[in-house]
């Protein structure tokens, strides 16, 4: 079954991942979208993404991170969740097929870490809103 790709949209109509991607350098944006397309063509549990699509752990369990290094060794990260379920469950979410839901992106200088507060504010809060809403809040 082929998967789709959707982008989380806030209640205010903002699409954080889209804004993040548009703000990335062209090469970075191309790399991040290439990973999404490869994973979409061969979604989990198949191995895909060339190691650039990684399952996260701990408090970020359930999220997937696409990793890319850009100019100035800045690290660009795009956060996604897999939205899969029974045909009835998918229909309730507004989908016909499973989706890779792109939530938001973050960027950091080389040799630094994101704090849990950053993950909570910029990723989990949005992901919770996405997963807690039926039908899903997505860009259209």
């Amino acid at each position, binding site marked *: 079954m082929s998967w*789709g*790709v*959707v*982008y989380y949209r806030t209640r205010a109509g903002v*699409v954080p991942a*889209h804004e993040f*991607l548009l703000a990335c350098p*062209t*090469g970075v*944006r*191309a*790399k991040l*979208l*290439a*990973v*999404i*397309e*490869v994973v979409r063509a*061969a979604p989990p549990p*198949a*191995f*895909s*993404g*060339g*190691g*650039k699509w*990684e399952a996260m752990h701990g408090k970020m369990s359930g999220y997937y991170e696409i*990793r890319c290094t850009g100019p100035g060794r800045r690290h660009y990260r795009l956060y996604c969740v897999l939205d899969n379920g029974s045909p009835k469950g998918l229909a309730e979410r507004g989908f*016909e*097929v499973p989706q890779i839901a*792109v939530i938001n992106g973050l960027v950091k200088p080389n040799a630094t870490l994101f704090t849990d507060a950053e993950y909570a504010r910029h990723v989990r809060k949005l992901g919770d809103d996405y997963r807690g809403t039926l039908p899903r809040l*997505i*860009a*259209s």
Partner: protein
Amino acid sequence: MTGTTFHDRFLTGQLADSEFRAEFERERREIEAVDAIVGALEGLRDERGLSKAELARQIGKNPASVRRTLTAPGNPELRTIIAMADALGAEIKIVRQRRPAVRQAA
């Protein structure tokens, strides 16, 4: 859903930019090549009924290193790939692409 979703329209628009398209296609080829190699090694390992730890023992590598190579090989070490292929009765080959080679500007 082809060509009608937000993502498809976004990607189609981006692909109209030649710089984006070149990088997108290069990246996709690279990822697909890594996926093909890792997928083939995983297939052979499965066919032989070897656990990742057993494969690691056979090639004298740390099990974590083999597990990482087979699950999240961001930049897999060539020697590990070659050793794993050898232990699984396979070999890595470079073959010419059918498309013309990409030439870098001087």
